[in-house]
């Protein structure tokens, strides 16, 4: 299994596969299916300072090779996450990446300050790209200056490295990526969901109570690959890639694009065993393709292959 170990800022990963935020809760449900210690890391559900109920239902709708969600950052709030969820997760040998969200910069810093003290939280994932909340979320992620400020503010208070989760709903993602790198980000995670909508044939109204929602799943994979390919060649911080991963081949494609680790989101709903399955299949796939270590795949799509070096564990 040596061939799968990856070292990234704050993270010593047994393997580069982790569930994506919001698609795995705080791990409890999946712990009935397999040992969470098998995972490279866990990106927990977005945490806000106070508990949130989120949006009215229906919150999900299906699309071709994808799904829309408008959960609206429902979460039990910072205190409960720190008091209950993280300690529970600490019984597993797996680093936690805490996804943090809020309506204003102070929310982010409050959550970051406190949650980064939890012993198993090894990195933060700054969610400036949630499309499903009225305030904050995506608004922070679509303006380079704002993205940079919130990154900087969080960096100042965080005890652990900070990864910034980028929204694909932008004209120029490289600009945002560079801004958050400038703001001190230790890494990027991308992509969050694309904004989408589905209407009911009978009523003409949106299927989601919230109107629009975030599109995830295989449908968005080519968009994710394109963005990671582009951004990875313009920043020098590593990228955790996500967006439509369902197979071990997809994982390789994300590495080729420029990712140094990947997260699996929607696919967990379809096959709760998907993460350990991919982890199991990875070594054989690497062997078949002739790589000794997964990190050799990073950035193969780039113009120049020398650039790969800094991503290596």
């Amino acid at each position: 299994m040596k061939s799968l170990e990856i070292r990234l800022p704050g993270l010593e990963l047994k393997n580069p596969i982790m569930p994506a935020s919001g698609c795995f809760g705080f791990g409890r449900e999946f712990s009935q299916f397999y040992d969470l210690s098998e995972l490279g890391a866990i990106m927990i559900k977005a945490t806000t300072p106070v508990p949130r109920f989120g949006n009215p239902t229906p919150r999900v709708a299906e699309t071709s090779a994808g799904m829309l969600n408008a959960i609206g950052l429902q979460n039990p709030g910072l205190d409960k996450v720190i008091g209950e969820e993280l300690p529970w997760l600490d019984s597993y040998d797996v680093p936690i990446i805490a996804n943090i969200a809020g309506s204003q910069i102070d929310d982010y810093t409050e959550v970051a300050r406190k949650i980064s003290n939890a012993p198993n939280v090894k990195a933060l994932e700054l969610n400036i790209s949630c499309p499903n909340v009225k305030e904050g979320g995506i608004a922070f992620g679509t303006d380079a200056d704002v993205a940079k400020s919130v990154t900087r503010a969080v960096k100042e208070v965080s005890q652990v490295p900070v990864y910034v989760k980028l929204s694909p709903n932008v004209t120029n993602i490289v600009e945002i990526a560079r801004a958050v790198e400038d703001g001190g980000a230790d890494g990027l995670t991308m992509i969050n969901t694309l904004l989408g909508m589905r209407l009911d044939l009978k009523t003409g109204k949106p299927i989601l109570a919230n109107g629009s929602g975030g599109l995830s799943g295989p449908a968005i994979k080519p968009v994710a690959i394109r963005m990671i390919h582009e951004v990875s060649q313009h920043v020098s911080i590593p990228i955790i890639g996500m967006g439509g991963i369902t197979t071990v081949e997809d994982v390789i494609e994300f590495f080729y694009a420029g990712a140094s680790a990947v997260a699996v989101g929607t696919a967990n709903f379809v096959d709760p065993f998907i993460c350990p399955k991919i982890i199991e299949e990875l070594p054989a796939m690497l062997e078949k393709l002739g790589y000794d270590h997964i990190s050799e795949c990073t950035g193969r799509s780039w113009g120049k292959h020398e650039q790969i070096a800094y991503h290596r564990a």
Partner: protein
Amino acid sequence: MIKQEEMKVINQKEIAQSIYELTLEGELVSEMSQPGQFVHIKTGNGFEPLLRRPISISSINPGKKQFTMIYRAEGKGTELLSQKEIEKSVDVLGPMGNGFPLNEAAAGSDTVLLVGGGIGVPPLYELSKRLKEKGITATHVLGFQAKEHVFYEDEFTKLGETYIVTADGSYGSQGFVTDVIRDLPKDFTVIYACGPTPMLRALEIEYGHKKLFLSLEERMGCGIGACFACVCHTADDPTGSSYKKVCSDGPVFRSGEVVI
């Protein structure tokens, strides 16, 4: 425990217009404990459709390791499911959720009513059989849109008194299940219900003061409690942040527990 299994199709037949009865076999059946639980089914290969479909367990045959479900083929997923032929396999995740609490009804002292609407009828079948085993003969009030959609009348009749009501009056009496219940002479102490939300709301209004158990429906992502797609507010905090998940806390709730 929830398991994932490629289960074998033992039988599939259309028992009413667009209504299919599907029997599957596999180890997973031994995990099925309560009536009212459901399974989460991958109806096609690949991403079309992408998500699983929740379908209630309608009857369980642990001896044969078989269970049956009844569903309406309407959208892409259920349409595909209806095309599964005998001997082929179906990817099932289950059993999911918490079903109808049998121990809330006591033989002798309780008079039990089961109320089903449309594709909410199926889980009541296993429930009624289990009640029977406990010595309780339930009364059934089953509502359908029209004659051509009615199913399982005989099966329920064998278990207890059964009233069929159709919205258009083409079979049984005309109207809603609540109309029928109002006219029933008996005084029920425990009611179990499954059906469309308006039906459940009407029951809650009229019979919320009794022991009433409602099986809810909600669009689901994961079906296991991880994605927060299927939450509802708790009745004691209707606008706050406390919640229940239909998939893992439900789908059956005691009336007054959650906002429906």
